[in-house]
């Protein structure tokens, strides 16, 4: 199977704009904190944060979570996953935290991210924002703010390519699993 484009540059821009508006409507300004899940969620979190900072006319704090230390599948890997930096420099307690990832699939990443997030404090509420919900959950976890919903069969993979990560242009593509 060839790669198929499911969202182009304009589509991603429109989706993020709508997601930012939705977050803005649901959360009072000044209570918000955005946290991107490494690595796919980091750049999207930054884009949402810029839009929200502009819309609410106040700096929205931004952080990054790396879930490697909270994974549930350490013993299933032939080698330990590479640990990246977690960087949350604002108080999480009392805030509404929007966790951002590019794609939600089994929900295990989000489970790990929630465990890590609460080690930083007690957020008043946590919302989950994803660009793509591809279905296939293995845990009772659901996103609150969604760019696009796709029904993707198990043998296929959704990939979000962003210019910040070195892509030529922003794209969401669908391709067979395991293909580089």
């Amino acid at each position, binding site marked *: 199977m060839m790669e198929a484009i499911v969202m182009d540059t304009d589509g991603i821009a429109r989706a993020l704009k709508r997601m930012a508006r939705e977050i803005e409507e649901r959360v009072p300004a000044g209570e918000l904190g955005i946290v991107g899940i490494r690595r796919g969620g980091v750049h999207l979190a930054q884009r949402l944060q810029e839009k929200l900072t502009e819309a609410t006319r106040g700096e929205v704090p931004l952080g990054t979570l*790396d879930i*490697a*230390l*909270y*994974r549930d599948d*350490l*013993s*299933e*890997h*032939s*080698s*330990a*996953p*590479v*640990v*990246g*930096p*977690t*960087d949350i420099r604002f108080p999480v307690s009392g805030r509404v935290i929007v966790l951002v990832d590019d794609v939600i699939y089994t929900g295990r990443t989000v489970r790990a991210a929630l*465990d*890590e997030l609460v*080690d*930083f*404090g007690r957020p008043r509420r946590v919302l989950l924002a994803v660009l793509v919900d591809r279905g296939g959950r293995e845990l009772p976890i659901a996103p609150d703010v969604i760019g696009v919903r796709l029904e993707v069969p198990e043998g296929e993979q959704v990939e979000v390519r962003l210019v910040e990560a070195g892509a030529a242009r922003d794209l969401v593509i669908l391709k067979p699993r395991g293909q580089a």
Partner: protein
Amino acid sequence: MIGRHRHLLGLEAFERDEIVAILQCAASMKEVLRRPLKKVPTLRGKGVVNLFFEASTRTRTSFETAAKILSADAVNWTAAASSLKKGETLLDTVRNIEAMRPDVLVIRHPAAGAPKFVADRVGCSVVSAGDGAHEHPSQGLLDLYTLAEHFSGVLRKGGIPDFGSIEGRTVVVVGDVTHSRVARSDLFGLTRLGARVRFCGPPTMIPPGVKELGASVFHGLREALKGADAVVMLRIQHERIGDPLIPGTREYSRFWGLDERKVQEWLGASCAILHPGPINRGVELSSEVADGVNSVILEQVENGVAVRMAILYLLAGGAQEPPAEGRTDSPAVARTRSANT
């Protein structure tokens, strides 16, 4: 696994990339140390045994702290309290500990090569916490980490050091190089990362053959410090004082110790001073120097915990391949196999 290695017995066998992989992992671990809640669930259910046949508070506590922050279960087994006094051999002790199924065995032993001897006979990962005058790899790694922080300007500021910043630097190691496992691990780590290493001390304290390993040798401290970017002051081991080959403490401190005057006159303003601890104040370092602006000794201690977290994580985190040879019938090996399926 750390690169190709299931054990960490010394830095001599490690390639540059493997060393940098540990240091990079340590940078993420250091962030955990700075959190309000200093605990992550990563190694929950993993066992770490600290097996110490030689007195050590700093290193043992550092490994124990590292294990606990990662939620591993850390147990300390010290020689003074063990059956060694009753005549048990090293191999019997280790087999007994292995039967308790640890995932990582951290060993300090007065005999060089003891951790290797054990590693060849057990199914779990082995980390040397210092063996004789051979190596002290975790100390070498924490020195590299601290130097990279210093050279890339993030020391005491936070942030991820650039490990390429060690390349081309000149680092002087001063003291009893002959008996120092720290000097050897520093030498291997520093040269792998592209630094120039100078050894300095009285002729009786510099072993033959270090030039072949890539170090240059100086007997006068003043010339050795010329153009140095950092200096590692080794500890003079009290138990060696009185040895006819070793100068007395006053003579040593006069010629090879650092005091405020020598720091002012001989050292560049940005030269970092390291010491593996514990310090003999007034011998290797005067008190003003040990507590002065150039000293990064306490940063070394903090980085030691982060580096040891990285070592334990990399060795215990992933499932281990069973050893290619050795006792394939051992329970620990059988257990690691089943974890892979």
